[in-house]
């Protein structure tokens, strides 16, 4: 059994009278990739903030492994326009040496932006910067809130692939929130479908048949997922370009059953 990094037991979060997270239990182990999906207002962000310790649980038990280093990629990096900040400075604020910062930026494919102002980055570049910022701390647990926001469709697949590779390299646990159902189904170990409570959870292949899942997302989505088996026969680099020499020359020939 691999080491449990964080554990929630019957956790409930309530804002005033509104029940946002209802008796959720979940455990992240080293090496897990858990994706949380669910409709808007389902309490996804609140749930991961509870895992991170940013949100106090109204009831239930939250425990984290002692000395756990967490890397957090928040939904947005909204910077005050009045605060001048370069990518280099932002990375160095992690307290890690410059060489480590540069390596992390290179790993997420944005090392060329070292001297750029954080204010001038595109949405996708900001996401990669945040990922690098989380990475440089060598986290045991990586928590990502919609990491693919503002990233184009090709870049999204590459980003999820990168997260998987990072999981292997750092041997860390990953929890993320995602809306990209197709990509999630292809790139995740375990899916938790949240709608205040856990309506279903399990492996991607099984979950799309789950009645609770079908009820939450509708027949159309469930069916489209059930038939969608994503076979990679080519690779993209981080900029969404097809990597040469992998037997793929632009035309899409994914297999659809």
């Amino acid at each position, binding site marked *: 059994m691999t080491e449990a990094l964080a554990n929630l037991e019957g956790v409930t979060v309530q804002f005033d009278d509104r029940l946002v997270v209802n008796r959720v239990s979940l455990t992240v182990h080293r090496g897990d990739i858990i994706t949380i999906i669910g409709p808007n207002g389902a309490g996804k962000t609140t749930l991961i*903030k509870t895992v*991170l*310790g*940013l949100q106090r649980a109204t009831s239930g038990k939250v425990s984290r492994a002692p000395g756990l280093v*967490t*890397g*957090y990629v*928040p939904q947005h*990096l909204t*910077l*005050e326009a*009045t*605060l*001048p*900040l*370069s990518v280099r*400075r*932002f990375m160095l*604020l*992690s*307290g890690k040496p410059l060489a480590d910062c540069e390596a992390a930026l290179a790993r997420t494919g944005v090392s060329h932006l070292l001297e750029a*102002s954080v204010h001038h980055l595109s949405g996708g570049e900001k996401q990669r910067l945040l990922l690098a*910022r989380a990475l440089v*701390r060598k986290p045991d647990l990586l*928590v990502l809130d919609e990491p693919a926001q503002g990233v184009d469709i090709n870049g999204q697949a590459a980003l999820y692939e990168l997260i998987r590779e990072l999981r292997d390299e750092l041997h860390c646990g990953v929890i993320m929130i995602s809306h990209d159902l197709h990509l999630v189904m292809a790139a995740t170990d375990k899916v938790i479908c949240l709608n205040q409570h856990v309506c279903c959870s399990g492996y991607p292949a099984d979950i799309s048949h789950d009645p609770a899942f079908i009820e939450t997302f509708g027949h159309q989505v469930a069916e489209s997922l059930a038939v969608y088996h994503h076979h990679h026969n080519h690779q993209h680099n981080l900029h969404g370009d097809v990597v040469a020499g992998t037997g793929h020359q632009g035309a899409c020939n994914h297999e659809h059953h």
Partner: protein
Amino acid sequence: MSIIDAVLGDFFWRALIGGLGVALVAGPLGCFVVWRRLAYFGDTLAHSALLGIALSFLISVPLNLAVIITCVVIALALVLLSRTRALSTDTLLGILAHSALAIGLVTLSFMPEVRVDLTGLLFGDLLAMSRQDLLWIYGGAAVVLTLLAVLWRGLLMSTIHEELARVEGVPVERLRLALMLMFSLVIAVAMKIVGVLLITALLVIPAATARRLAKNPEHMMALAVVFGFIAVAGGLSMSWYLDSPAGPSVVVTAFLSFLLVYGAARKNSH
């Protein structure tokens, strides 16, 4: 008579040295006011300083100490009240800022035996700087600058992204308190220069001017100090030659350099 005595014996030099000391801390803290959108918050604290002055006469404690304590109490009250979310923060600030100012004025009016120069309190009395004031200013500056240097990484990180900072183990709440303490200190010493009504200007204008030219946070702080120096030196000269009130002259000079920098930068970008 030594040179130091000669310099400190002259009211104009005392004013200049004191003013520069205030600019030295107003610059860095002003950056935080701009970054964290605390301009109105600073105003509220500054206005409550008048309440502190009234209290200092009422219970006879040293003036600066009373001001600092009142500012800290008001700052804590603000934090607690804004957590209840019954009223929006700017409404809350509007209520507290002007109530504190009004209560201070009313309290002072009940003490006819206390002769205070109200204009000096409201708009500053730079030219009446005493040696003891200088001691307060440079003592306060030393405390604030040391705190800033020690807490710098955490303060900056929690300003950039509070949740990210918390995940990384930065004690965000304690740093917020430290920042408020520093504000209270700066207000207590800056009051002498520009008065309670104009303190926010001395915090915000040099920092905003610096933003136009700065590439990173530390650079912006250094530039804010420089623009603060320019404002103090320029304002004092203006007051000397035009016989204008010193505090407002300092703010006018700060505003002019702001216009100049933004005007020049605009021309360059075309």
